[in-house]
């Protein structure tokens, strides 16, 4: 898909093709298919399986997933671009998701967000030059009593402050 959204999007021309699913990816997708009455239901699982291993989902991956599931590439792309957490652009080694919803807003996430952008010298949607971090906003992480909250890869960080966010980021190589 090529939508020119002026904000937050770097249009990537090299989409990382040609692409082939690894045996492990294929197997994981096929086993996810067994959970449902219909193979199409494994679309999101499949996208996540690829993304887990390659950080993002390239054009070639869309076509390959479509072939395994027996659905059209247009349908897979429709799903991939609908959901927030499927990345159709390359991301860094670590994705920092900053909760920007009301609970974290009231407890001051904006300052934390600014501080992250300052430390990494990138804007939301961008990736650091060393390919280490990508920063993105995310909807309420369901921990409003412990905000501001960050989700970095699989780790949830609670009560983050502009002062301690630097230390949080240092944990990642």
């Amino acid at each position, binding site marked *: 898909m090529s939508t020119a959204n002026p904000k937050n999007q770097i249009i990537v021309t090299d989409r990382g093709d040609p692409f082939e699913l690894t045996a492990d990816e294929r197997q994981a997708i096929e086993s996810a298919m067994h959970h449902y009455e219909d193979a*199409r*239901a494994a*679309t*999101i699982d499949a996208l996540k399986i690829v993304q887990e291993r390659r950080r993002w989902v390239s054009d070639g991956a869309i076509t390959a997933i479509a072939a395994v599931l027996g659905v059209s590439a247009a349908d897979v792309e429709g799903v991939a671009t609908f959901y927030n957490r499927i990345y159709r652009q390359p991301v860094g080694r670590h994705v920092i*998701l900053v909760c920007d919803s009301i609970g974290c807003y009231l407890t001051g996430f904006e300052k934390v967000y600014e501080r992250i952008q300052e430390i990494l010298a990138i804007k939301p949607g961008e990736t650091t030059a060393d390919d280490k971090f990508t920063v993105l906003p*995310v*909807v309420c992480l369901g*921990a409003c009593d412990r905000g501001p909250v960050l989700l970095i890869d699989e780790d*949830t960080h609670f009560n983050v402050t502009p002062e301690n966010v630097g230390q949080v980021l240092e944990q990642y190589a």
Partner: protein
Amino acid sequence: MSSQINVGIKVDRETHPLTWRRHAAGGAVHTLSAYEALEGFAALRKIMGTDPLELQKTVKDAGLRGRGGAGFPTGVKWSLIPMGPDSGRKYLICNADEMEPGTFKDRMLMEELPFQLVESMVVSAYAIGAQVGYIFLRGEYIEAAERLRSAIAEAKAAGYLGNNILGTDFSFQLHVHEGAGRYICGEETALINCLEGRRANPRTKPPFPQQAGAWGRPTIVNNVETLCNIPDIVLKGAVWFKSLSQGLSSDAGTKLYGIAGRVKNPGLWELPIGTTSRAILELAGGMQEGLELVTWLPGGASTDFLMPEHLDLAMDYDTIGKAGSRMGTGLIMVVDSEQDIMKVLRNLMVFMARESCGWCTPCRDGLPWTLKVVDALSRGEGAVGDIEWLQDMTRWLGPGRPFCAHAPGAMEPLQSAIKFFRGEFEKGIKAV
């Protein structure tokens, strides 16, 4: 670090169907043996071989209402599903998408009491005759996913789940399905589309999921908290469950209430349904030093603001409804005196506009426009007529006009903000 849970209240097996095990275990219950030691799977054993319709009736009699936000009577919902030998394949789906801003209750139940949800699902599946179930979990709940997966594996190995449960001819397969992020996936029909691997646009109702849900088959969708009440209703009965609200409300049972925002000790408490918000605020130790409570959302970003004078109302569906808001998820968000109400509102509208699924016009195109006007007002860039225009929008995007309840939800904080804080809006209009 986990939420503060039930701090400062006496938790008892008789009065806390949702959380007593956590208290008794002195923390999370993560193993099957620990769960079994606390009457785990006793409800399942009790219902095996009984008439599912009886079970449905018990839940109906108990007066349990959906804790996902809309408050629909659970037993009534169940009774709409076709039963009998010809009813074919049916599904039970647990709505664990919890993305309503300000809501953090289902996370706790799944991270700390995963077996309780698993048992609840098996029992509920038995009641509606479902063969397959899904826990539709938001992808960001990583610990919950691990806990649930391991609970499912253990329960299955022990014969509580899978084929021929407890040696009977009842079989039930349970899967954890993780989403990929979109608030609208919490809407039950959008959730079904998402589960089927489609774009999560809501579906037309009727037909309701009970008639034609996942893959066109009869399907029940219930919230995590709703379901977690089921085992104790089975064990202790409808009358007991009704009594739990202790006369504070005509509603039955307890509710996981919580509070966040700048209070001293934000947290989560299982309390009789109908407890006042003031009592909840007090459990949290009140506002942080030097802050006043200006306004509050009773149950998520899609509920109307209430004012300090509403703090003494019983937090139940009808009372909060009569006060002009909704109980929603029952997790309170307080706005303090240092906040700029227009910026608070702007934050809510950013969320709502961004999370529109893009299906219907009012929501897809109306919310971004609304956001732009609120944003302009919050920056002093508003135009004459903006307030009246926003008021029109609250009518046009109200219930029944957009396709689903997302856009109407977005209008609730807006309309109440105009009602209570019109002066702030007026301040945002640029002098000409």
